[in-house]
């Protein structure tokens, strides 16, 4: 046992020196996560601000003015044109000059006063699905808020019904939803890539043959490589979480212990995955490609990061249960936004632990000591 630890320690220490002395590894470990966080955090924002709005007000009354002012009062809509007719507004939308148009026909105030359904319309450009959905949601929210605040004649606007509040994310900030997903994706890519290189590099440089002639065993090589990379992964986690919460105002409501426990298990999953690829392919180029595909695509598409899992066909839902990022993202959102603890996140952590153990065992078993 003592010898086992000593040999593993020797491998781990050597690996640490490789990491510290290799600029490429350092960049992969610390530079890439920051770059990705910035790219994803800002580019993949689902918040839509400053939607270009045209207002066609044929009614020209107090009520119609209040309606259009309410829409542009916040930052969601910005009035860029006041065309004379609805046809002109449509032409603007065809040319892409505006994304939405508010049409208020003559008689709007009158019908409103009589308590009849409104005759005003908000048209949105449906070719840009995301913007359309968000514009409609924003408009409904603005008008509803106005109604709740004043109980004024607008009670018959688009948004009759029970008041709706977004729990855990009252501002419906998409960064709250995205940042946990980005963290999961960054950690899975960076750790899978790093560990995918770790074993393949030794095969390519010939040092694996030298290593095999020593008493160092397969599990010692795997664990020895795992230890420093896990350390690097935890630094990445800290980095991404800190930057994420500072730059995108993501709150951390839950316990840091649970957060790091989940992150550690997830890291072990992805490092194990990278090591398995590395052991199986023995080539740096091949294993980098596998690691990239196998870590990025599932955590982007099948994890519930961007696309809800319950909307997928049943077979894709089944596939997604084998994606560790799915559980990690749930755990992250749970801890960060809802303040959930181990009692609630137990199943997620257990799933991650299972995947980690499975991946690492697979890597050790697939690791052939003999050269061929």
């Amino acid at each position: 046992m003592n010898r086992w630890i000593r040999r593993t320690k020797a491998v781990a220490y050597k690996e640490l020196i490789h990491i510290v002395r290799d600029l490429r590894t350092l960049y992969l470990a610390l530079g890439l996560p920051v770059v990705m966080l910035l790219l994803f955090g800002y580019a993949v924002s689902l918040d839509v601000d400053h939607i270009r709005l045209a207002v066609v007000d044929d009614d020209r009354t107090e009520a119609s003015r209040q309606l259009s002012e309410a829409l542009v009062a916040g930052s969601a809509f910005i009035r860029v044109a006041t065309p004379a007719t609805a046809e002109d507004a449509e032409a603007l939308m065809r040319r892409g000059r505006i994304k939405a148009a508010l049409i208020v026909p003559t008689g709007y105030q009158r019908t409103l006063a009589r308590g009849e359904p409104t005759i005003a319309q908000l048209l949105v450009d449906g070719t840009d699905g995301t913007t359309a959905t968000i514009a409609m949601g924003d408009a409904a929210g603005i008008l509803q808020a106005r109604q709740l605040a004043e109980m004024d004649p607008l009670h018959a606007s688009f948004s009759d019904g029970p008041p709706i509040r977004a729990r855990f994310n009252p501002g419906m900030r998409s960064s709250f939803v995205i940042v946990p997903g980005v963290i999961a994706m960054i950690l899975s890519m960076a750790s899978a890539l790093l560990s995918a290189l770790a074993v393949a590099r030794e095969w390519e440089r010939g040092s694996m043959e030298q290593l095999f002639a020593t008493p160092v065993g397969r599990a010692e090589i795997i664990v020895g490589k795992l230890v420093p990379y896990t350390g690097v992964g935890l630094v990445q986690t800290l980095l991404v979480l800190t930057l994420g919460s500072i730059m995108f105002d993501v709150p951390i409501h839950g316990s840091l212990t649970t957060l790091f426990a989940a992150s550690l298990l997830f890291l072990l999953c992805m490092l194990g995955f990278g090591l398995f690829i590395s052991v199986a392919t023995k080539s740096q180029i091949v294993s980098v490609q596998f690691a990239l595909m196998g870590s990025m695509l599932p955590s982007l598409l099948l994890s519930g990061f961007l696309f809800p899992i319950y909307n997928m066909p049943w077979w894709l839902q089944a596939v997604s249960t084998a994606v560790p990022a799915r559980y990690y993202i749930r755990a992250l959102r749970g801890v960060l936004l809802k303040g959930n603890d181990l009692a609630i996140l137990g199943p997620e952590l257990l799933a991650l632990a299972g995947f980690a153990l499975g991946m690492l065992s697979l890597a050790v078993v697939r690791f052939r000591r003999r050269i061929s």
Partner: protein
Amino acid sequence: MIETRPPSVRVRELTRRFGEFVAVDRVSFDVRPGEIFGYLGANGAGKSTTIRILCGLLGATSGEARVAGVDVVHHAALVRSTIGYMSQRFSLYLDLTVRENLEFFGGAYGLFGAAFRARRDVVLRDLDLEALRDQLTGSLPAGLRQRLALACAILHQPRVVFLDEPTAGVDPDARSTFWRLIRALAAADTTIFVTTHYMDEAELCDRVGLMVKGRLAALDTPSGLKRSFVPGRMLEVHGVARDDLRRVTSGMSVREIEPFGAALHLRVPDDGPRVDDIRAALVAAGLSGVAVSDADVTLEDVFLRVVRDDGGAS
């Protein structure tokens, strides 16, 4: 002195196939403790394959191989702590310093603490690497890298050391230093199993095995090999064509005439023609500007002879 200890390496009918290709073909030999055993052969003759099997890195197709008493065909893991191995390709870590490489391999062999440090210092001193201890391995010239590789391979005081073409690509000066170290190791009763394709290095071995196309074609001491494969004396002739020399010496007892570099090697029986006889005959035939001298039989002569015989046999 008669060796009574069991052999360090014992190989019987060892065979390794890669598909149809037979890399090692029914090879048998023993290596005595403290012996420098040279394995000579062309590239692809099966030298590295044999070494890899003996180090437990490669399985055997059939046959028996024991190293330091351990059956390496079936229990490869047991032999690793008693052997040292230097692979053909330089395979230490270039981004580690000399000291860090030694520390890593020390740890890999389970050495630690004061015992490790003492041993490390001995090896650094014996191999004259002390001044370089904090240099990055990647900054060392090939000769010093090989010396460091040897240092890493002998840290744990193995009973048998396997060196696969340890001096390939190393300058002659560094090669002779390296061989001095190998002889010192053997003198301290470490068994050395070394492959090479340098004939001058093979001369430094206690015994030499000649590999031709996977088979062990010959095995003896260098002088024994010369006696049995190239009996008689050797004369070297410069400045004459092979056909002319053959014509001029046709009446004499000459065994064979072989090209040897730019010269010709003339093999004669012990009681055959002398240097003066050949020179006189060449002058009488009107061939001037020739140089004739006595030459030593080299392992290269042996090697050429064995390869040719083998080519004729198959």
